[in-house]
């Protein structure tokens, strides 16, 4: 079996002492930052990017992936204990998780989240390992027209499945694509929109955008808000282990969440956020045992389902990124950016040209999940202490890491100033209700999209119908169109709004 050989090779890579260490460092740092209220995975990864500058590609990606699911885990802890979701994917966890914590059942809630996530993570690792190779095969059949259409589908999917105004989200994608046009045109060698600034001829660095908008922008918005009362409900969590009845209740929810998350994670625009929302809705709809605690008042299924789903979704969202080189969400866009920094062009060739990186990364996901269980359940006390640290100590630390990261990117203070500019732009986005994640996605995909569009047009001698006459490409475009039509339907529109409102 190829699958097992490949996984065996992957584990060989992931279990080397050095990579274990980086994986541990990643999940530890990710949890550390993710636990802090109001810092999501995008900001966390952006902030911790400097820690991988000096590493080899494989440990670098293993560490980044660890940071990602570490921050996810940390986010759930915050959601359960203080009702301030660290990231949007844990918004639904906060509903029942916090209710459980108030009833003195924080321990079982944390355990359900942790064990559910571990189970989901293990299954999702297998899903990634099983589905990545066939998709890679398929990707090799793609020409520029198919790639272009796939990116259209990916971008449309990303906004259709997100919350908020659809038109504004599409406009944000376009703005991101346009910002990606500030570079030197690859085909003609003409610098575009550079205003004779030499640094701009290489394009804006994605780290400057991510840190400016997600790092500085978020700090400023947090400080601008009146200080909220953060009540840490449980200073020490006792009775971590769930009861037998808890296990019985939670297990089917974990199974459902895992299945749902694994599927939704692969979709463009999917990943952790969508998966957790969908899983919560599913749990609410499915029948529990008679006499169980109602949803919203501390039902363990409301924690186990979404948490399993978001972890499964977080992992399977690696599939499109690893096989096609197309990030399905903003976190994966950062991963693509990080791979590029390390000199690896994401795409189907990664599996054949860097098999050790590819399989090592997949195997490390399972290893990382195991570490997270150990890190989060027995050591929960440390993270709770961290929650009591006031924000006035935390944000200077975040600022320092961001600034050092920006400067060391190219040993040039230009990127620091760019991030300041994007900090201003980020505040404008927040105030005008423009969700910034699609912008980042557009920005990363922009250059790839242009290149494929132009190559497709060159091949077809300027005939735009090439995108609809090639069957694969036209199928992808039709799927994108269908997504828009479906979301525009009044009935669905209402439901979509309701689904996202549920969480508030």
């Amino acid at each position, binding site marked *: 079996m190829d699958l097992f050989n490949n996984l065996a090779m992957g584990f060989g890579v992931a279990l080397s002492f050095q990579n274990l260490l980086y994986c541990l460092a990643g999940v530890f740092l990710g949890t550390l930052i993710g636990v802090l209220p109001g810092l999501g995975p995008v900001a966390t990864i952006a902030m911790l990017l*400097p820690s991988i500058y000096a590493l080899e590609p494989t440990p670098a990606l293993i560490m980044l992936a660890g940071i990602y699911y570490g921050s996810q885990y940390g986010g759930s802890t915050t959601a359960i204990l203080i009702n301030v979701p660290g990231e949007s994917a844990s918004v639904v966890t906060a509903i029942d998780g916090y209710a459980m914590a108030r009833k003195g059942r924080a321990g079982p809630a944390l355990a359900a989240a942790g064990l559910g996530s571990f189970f989901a993570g293990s299954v999702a690792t297998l899903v990634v390992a099983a589905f990545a190779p066939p998709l890679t095969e398929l990707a090799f059949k793609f020409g520029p027209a198919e790639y272009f259409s796939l990116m259209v589908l990916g971008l449309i999917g990303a906004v259709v499945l997100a919350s908020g105004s659809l038109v504004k989200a599409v406009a944000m994608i376009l703005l991101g694509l346009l910002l990606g046009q500030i570079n030197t045109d690859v085909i003609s060698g003409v610098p575009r929109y550079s205003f004779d600034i030499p640094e701009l001829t290489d394009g804006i660095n994605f780290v400057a955008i991510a840190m400016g908008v997600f790092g500085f922008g978020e700090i400023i918005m947090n400080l601008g808000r009146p200080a909220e009362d953060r009540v840490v409900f449980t200073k020490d969590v006792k009775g971590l282990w769930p009861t037998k009845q808890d296990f019985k209740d939670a297990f089917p929810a974990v199974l459902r969440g895992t299945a749902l998350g694994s599927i939704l994670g692969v979709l463009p625009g999917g990943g952790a956020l969508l998966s957790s929302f969908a899983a919560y809705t599913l749990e609410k709809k499915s029948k529990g045992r008679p006499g169980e605690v109602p949803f919203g008042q501390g039902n363990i299924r409301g924690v186990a389902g979404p948490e399993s789903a978001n972890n499964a979704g977080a992992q399977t969202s690696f599939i499109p990124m690893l096989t096609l080189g197309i990030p399905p969400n903003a976190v994966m866009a950062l991963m693509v950016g990080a791979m590029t920094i390390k000199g690896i062009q994401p795409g189907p060739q990664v599996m054949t040209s860097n098999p050790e990186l590819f399989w090592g990364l997949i195997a490390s996901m399972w290893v990382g999940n195991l570490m997270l269980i150990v890190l989060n359940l027995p050591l929960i006390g440390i993270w709770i202490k961290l929650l009591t640290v006031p924000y006035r100590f935390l944000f200077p630390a975040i*600022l*320092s890491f961001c600034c050092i990261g920006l400067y060391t990117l190219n040993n040039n203070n230009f990127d620091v100033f760019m991030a*300041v500019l994007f900090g201003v732009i980020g505040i404008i986005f927040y105030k005008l209700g423009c969700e910034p994640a699609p912008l980042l996605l557009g920005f990363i995909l922009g250059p790839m999209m242009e290149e494929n569009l132009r190559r497709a047009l060159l091949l077809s001698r300027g005939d735009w119908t090439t995108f609809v006459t090639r069957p694969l490409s036209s199928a992808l475009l039709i799927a994108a169109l269908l997504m828009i039509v479906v979301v525009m339907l009044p009935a669905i529109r209402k439901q979509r709004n309701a689904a996202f409102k549920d969480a508030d």
Partner: protein
Amino acid sequence: MRIKNEKDFWAGWMFLVAGIAFAWGAAENYNFGSSARPGPAYFPFGLGSLMAILGAFIILTSVTLQPDGDESIGPWPFRPAVTILGAVTAFGFAIPHIGMAIALPLLIGIGSLASGEFRVKEVIANSVVLTVSSWAIFIKGLGLIIPLWPDFLG
């Protein structure tokens, strides 16, 4: 005409103006080429035009459709914005010449003014801890090249 959705109204203008600027900049400065041989202006011109159209559409809906909730922009966080971004700018100017040992405390000192509770002792302690740990992590641990002391000292 009354603005019914303040956020969308200004967001629409942002997209409209930025779209026109990008499209105009492309058409003015770069070769458009043809569909058979697209030039450097081809893609940005198309994107910019599309974004401008969407911007105009958003403005239009913002004055015609009544939003569900309150969509007013509200006060801008001027104080934290100026202090935080000012602190980062100061760091940017300082780091290449006077080094991390001074630039980081500068960043932390100015940045801390952004929170309502500025306590001198805490800020000093915070600066020392963060500067030392940044040195340990980034310079010692990760081997990144960051100037530590001012030019004239070393």
